[in-house]
């Protein structure tokens, strides 16, 4: 590399400057501010605030509602992620299988992805309307004779939870199909041909070729879904009354943070501590996923 090239590379800093400046102002400082606030008793109304150490965090751990929120968020995420990954994996295998030769793969995928683009707030409100007492679902099941009279779906803790899980699944399985398929089609075909010549069964090929080579994609799907799932807000917030009713069954981390923020005094110190804790929890799990999936890969080599 000559001197002119070396000098020219300083232009990199110029191109990055707007990003870095905007990040410092709108990204880094707010993060610092949130962490700092989480150690204070600041409210929106108060002029003064005091450093209270870990008191906000201690209070959260002592409070049942925080544990409920954490449990709910995890439960809803896991219950939606397993069928999401399972169904997406199955469909991706079918779509990429040349022997089955499924027609119209592009069209199927395009339809399945559609819910992912819809405004989540509107989707939640839509399901609220569909499952309300006088809504179409009740009309349908009563008239078809499945049940004798209309049900209060949205007042049943289990049904509401299942609904949130279903909506999340409905919105995300199409995206997972597209990502998994991109991963599968990037695996070189000669690998499968060689395996077939050696007499491998299709399940052997899946376990020994597809799955190991798909690992980076799986990590990506896993981690992005986790980070998104831990931030779930719009759907559970708008499906019922915005407080996770009935019986706090869909009260998620983010709803709890919002409730603290929007409480009559506006406890932004306490709200910040919820945000910080969710971040710590999410990062630890993301790192664990990276660690475990990587480690096994190295052993097999």
């Amino acid at each position, binding site marked *: 590399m000559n001197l002119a090239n070396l000098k020219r590379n300083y232009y990199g800093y110029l191109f990055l400057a707007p990003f870095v400046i905007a990040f410092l102002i709108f990204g880094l*400082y707010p993060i610092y501010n949130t962490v700092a606030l989480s150690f204070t008793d600041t409210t929106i109304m108060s002029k003064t605030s005091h450093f209270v150490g870990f008191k906000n965090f201690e209070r959260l751990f002592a409070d049942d509602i925080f544990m409920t929120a954490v449990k709910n968020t995890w439960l809803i995420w896991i219950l939606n992620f397993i069928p999401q990954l399972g169904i997406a994996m199955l469909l991706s295998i079918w779509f990429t299988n040349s022997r089955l030769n499924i027609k119209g793969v592009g069209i199927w995928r395009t339809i*399945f992805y559609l819910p992912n683009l819809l405004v989540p*707030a509107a989707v939640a409100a839509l399901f609220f309307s569909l499952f309300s007492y006088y809504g179409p679902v009740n009309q349908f099941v009563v008239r078809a004779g499945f049940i004798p009279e209309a049900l209060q779906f949205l007042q049943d803790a289990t049904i509401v939870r299942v609904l949130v899980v279903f909506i999340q699944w409905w919105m995300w399985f199409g995206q997972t199909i597209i990502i998994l398929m991109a991963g599968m089609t990037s695996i070189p075909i000669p690998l499968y041909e060689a395996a077939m010549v050696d007499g491998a069964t299709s399940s052997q090929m899946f376990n020994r070729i597809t799955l190991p080579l798909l690992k980076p994609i799986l990590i990506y799907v896993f981690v992005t879904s986790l980070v998104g799932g831990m931030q779930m807000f719009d759907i559970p917030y708008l499906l019922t009354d915005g407080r996770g009713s009935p019986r706090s069954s869909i009260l998620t981390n983010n709803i709890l943070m919002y409730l603290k923020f929007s409480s009559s005094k506006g406890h932004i110190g306490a709200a910040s501590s919820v945000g910080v804790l969710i971040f710590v929890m999410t990062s630890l799990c993301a790192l664990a996923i990276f660690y475990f999936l990587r480690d096994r890969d190295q052993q097999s080599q």
Partner: protein
Amino acid sequence: MFNNYKLNTYVMRALIYLILAILVIITITPIWLLIVNATRSTVQIQQGIAIIPSTHALENYNILLGRGLNLIQGFTNSLFLAVASTLVTVYFSMLTAYGLVVYHFKGRVAFNNFIVVLVMIPTQLSIIGFYQYMSKLGLTDNYAALILPLIANASAVFFGRQYFESMVMYDLIDAARIDGASELGIFHKIMMPLAVPGAVTMGIFAFVSSWNNFFTPFIMISSKEKYTLPMLVQTLRGDVYRTEYGSIYLGLAFTVVPIIIIYAIFSRYIVSGIALGAVKE
């Protein structure tokens, strides 16, 4: 034995098409019911389910307007915000991504890793601190607080970087340099026009994510005339509209249908764009 094998494939294929058809019904039904009910009167909706649209959309719209919910204004607000967010995201993210791919400056690798870490950081970690800080600056209830942070949009930069890396362009850049073009000039006049497909994909995602965003505007915006469509959806859940089923569906359809139209036009860009973010070339 060969016949048996062939038969199995036929049965399997039929089964798969059946499952796909069921999944399509599950995917489409809620959306179709939404659109149909938006055009039906409350009385019709109470009478039962229909799968053919009716003629009461305007009536439903006027009921909402009569109760102080202005869908057109919400639409205009959402559109303004989404267009501004798209322009800011695309220009600055392409600029950053280009700089990261083309110039081999010190700290480039570290910066690349840093971008990936930023993509993973959840909104919750910054939103409360952001709100308090913006209220000190007097920027709450101001769209600037929703648009300016997008100058540093990590996931868009990540996407742009993947895109530029897949483009062969060094010869072109060198040729332009010999012709005396400036570095910024090369980016603006040569690379950006060539990168239009990538910019369009990035732009669609930026547009949709701004259009769909509920949480951040919900925290930052307080005056009613600045409400975006997802925020109006939240007011639709209020008691005032409790029995106006047709109008509620219309309000929801108003927020959802523009996205469906965009998807109908750009679905190829969108579907290929999702994979570009995940699969390394």
